[in-house]
């Protein structure tokens, strides 16, 4: 561990919920003496105002740079601590590890509970120590909206935006707008609202907040928000609508309508792209609905533009330019279309848009030359956690569970919260997506001495990152095949788990250990 980094460990008693089952003082002493952290302390409730004040005071006095709060669920409490430590500790360096629901509750009375708790804290410290700094990315939002399509929906949206004081350009491919659309735009001062007829969008470039649209007229315009209101597409695909959708990375369904790209991530983990769809381009609709939708997307686009800038401090992936061979596998699997290519020498270099990237790690696992890495889950971090878990304080071999945030980990927390019990010789390593894992990591855990490695991910079709779980399955098969050669395959398994099924979590773990 890098001794220059000052890490603080704060163990919570949680009003007796943790201290009633674990020796909190011993955990603090373990962190201080054996993990070599700069500071370790306990409190009744770190999350109450008194605890928070004390936390801030200690961090200031001891010049701590990174903190581990060993308390309860990150899903409920991490935001609280991020707000409390805003401006004091950067978000990537605030770690909340759930000693209550992963240790105190499910393993009450178990002799192995303390070793699991010690190792859980050790894993959090190891992860934090190995984490690289990741400053937030900021991008300006161009205060200009482009509406593509001059029908009812497009004209309504353009008018609404202009009314809100936002510069708009309406682009229509026909030589004239239809009568009802013209009516909508009639009584409006033209300086705010430009109408370009006989024009189409040929290319969309730039990045979030600063899109560059190359028009058929030869002009290039910049926009912070784009509204697609092109009306019902002519079938079959490909057609102008589907081509536009492809340029904007919008999904098109089987009937040619532009579908919603449903992003099942927390609002804090992703940013709004500023691209919206309304009217019959989206779904068959009558005039009233088209108008309603137009007002809705205009409001959203206006709000987006009025923010002025995008700030994203979620983790993101980067490409090592010295390793990238331009194969393009990463771009194929990226669920957020965040990867583009720059040409260089005789091939090309993958470039990841740090704003669009959500840090899922799918690109990391498919990259054949290890050029991609994610700031929140580097190989060093994962290996450090594996080491802390497998070479931890338990005197018996432990089972390492790679648990996906959205399924296995969630189920594990709920199993504890509901008071279910399972063997305490388990160590849970949380990943954003099982798609991040590689055969090397799975086998390394076994090589280091894990009794078994169980990967818990989302069921097929339900991955929050599109196909992360399918990559995980492919990775697992590779690891399994290699493991088979070494006679280790019985100690490796992959299971799908729903996010709330504590019972199934317990079942899978217990079955696996047999």
């Amino acid at each position, binding site marked *: 561990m890098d001794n220059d980094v000052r890490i603080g460990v704060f163990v919570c008693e949680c*009003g007796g919920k943790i201290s009633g089952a674990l020796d909190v003082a011993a955990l603090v002493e373990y962190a201080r003496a054996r993990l070599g952290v700069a500071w370790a302390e306990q409190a*009744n*409730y770190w*999350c*109450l*105002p*008194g*605890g928070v*004040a004390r936390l801030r005071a200690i961090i200031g006095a001891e010049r701590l740079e990174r903190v581990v709060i060993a308390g309860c*669920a990150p*899903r*409920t*409490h991490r*935001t*609280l601590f991020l707000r409390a430590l805003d401006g004091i500790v950067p978000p990537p360096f605030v770690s909340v590890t759930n000693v209550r629901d992963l240790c105190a509750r499910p393993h009450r009375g178990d002799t192995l509970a303390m070793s699991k708790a010690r190792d859980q804290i050790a894993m959090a410290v190891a992860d934090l120590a190995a984490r690289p700094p990741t400053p937030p990315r900021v991008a300006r939002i161009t205060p200009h909206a482009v509406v593509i399509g001059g029908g009812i929906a497009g004209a309504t949206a353009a008018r609404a935006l202009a009314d809100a004081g936002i510069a708009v350009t309406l682009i229509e491919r026909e030589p004239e707008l*239809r*009568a*009802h659309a013209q009516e909508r735009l009639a009584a409006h001062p033209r300086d705010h609202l430009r109408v370009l007829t006989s024009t189409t969008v040929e290319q969309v470039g730039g990045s979030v907040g600063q899109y560059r649209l190359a028009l058929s007229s030869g002009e290039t315009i910049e926009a912070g928000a784009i509204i697609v209101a092109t009306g*019902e597409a002519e079938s079959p695909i490909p057609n102008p609508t589907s081509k536009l959708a492809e340029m904007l990375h919008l999904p098109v*369904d*089987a*009937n040619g*309508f*532009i*579908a*919603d790209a*449903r*992003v*099942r*991530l*927390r*609002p*804090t983990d992703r940013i709004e792209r500023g691209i919206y769809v309304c009217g*019959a381009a*989206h*779904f*068959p*609709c*009558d*005039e009233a*609905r088209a108008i309603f*939708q137009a007002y809705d997307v205009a409001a959203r686009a206006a709000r987006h533009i009025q923010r002025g800038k995008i700030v994203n401090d979620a983790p993101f992936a980067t490409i090592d330019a010295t390793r990238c061979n331009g194969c393009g596998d990463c771009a194929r699997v990226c669920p957020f279309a965040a990867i583009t290519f720059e040409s260089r020498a005789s091939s090309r270099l993958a470039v990841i848009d740090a704003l669009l990237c959500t840090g899922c790690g799918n690109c990391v696992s498919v990259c054949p030359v290890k050029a991609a890495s994610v700031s929140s889950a580097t190989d060093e971090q994962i290996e450090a956690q594996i080491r802390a878990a497998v070479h931890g304080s338990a005197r018996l071999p432990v089972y390492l569970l790679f648990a996906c945030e*959205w399924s296995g980990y*969630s189920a594990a*927390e*709920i199993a504890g*919260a*509901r008071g279910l019990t399972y063997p305490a010789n388990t160590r849970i390593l949380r990943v954003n997506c099982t798609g991040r894992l590689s055969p090397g990591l799975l086998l390394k855990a076994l090589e280091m001495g894990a009794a078994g490695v169980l990967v818990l991910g989302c*069921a097929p*079709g*339900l991955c*929050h990152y599109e196909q992360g779980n399918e990559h995980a399955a492919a990775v697992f098969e590779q690891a399994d095949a290699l493991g088979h050669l070494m006679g280790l395959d019985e100690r490796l398994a992959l299971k799908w788990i*729903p*996010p*709330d*099924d504590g019972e199934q979590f317990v079942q899978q773990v217990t079955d696996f250990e047999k």
Partner: protein
Amino acid sequence: MIRLTMDDRTLAVPPGYTLLQAARENDIPIPTLCAHEALLPYGACRLCLVELVGARSRLVASCAYPCEEGLKVRTNSDAVIAARRTVIELLLATSAHLPIVRALAAEWGVRSPYVTLETNDCVLCGLCVRACHEIVGVGAISLTRRGMARAVGTPFQISSADCIECGTCALVCPTGAIRVEDVTRPARRAHVWQSDYARRACRLCEYEPPAMASADDDRELLGNVKREA
């Protein structure tokens, strides 16, 4: 610092503390169901009622009542315990089958309620809704309807378009009433705002719209949308 008395103990707390927070920090036990450290106070369950002793003694929800200089608070007076028992009795009326309710009943000596109502896993504590709005920031669910029909649900009681299946609602639910189910059905279609794709729903908001096989059916339903100006 604000000085107040709670159960004959003098407490000193910084401004902005609620009575419940002051009690928690000083290991004074007050039962709660709808209070959560990471959420704003809601005051739904009324289990946390304490008595403010004075010229006109009254019961207040300690989760929401701010500490004031010189308050005299009792967390276990006769009035408080009577109120607590009434709350538990009402909980037993709908949810006697829940372990958390049974535990409260056992602790406070409440037996059969004077009334039994339709069984409900949900005790309307609002933790799921508040977590979805305040912590997750998605706001996919809300408390809907009123009176006996009050329930946690989604807009229009259909599969939520905004739910990200993070499971935070299930995690904070004190009774286990929320399950997040995988309901991947390829033919399933949401209402007119969304296009056709496989969808998940939590059991609370499960709703099966009338089977619509294709976009043509929608057009028929909407009365032939294509218009030429």
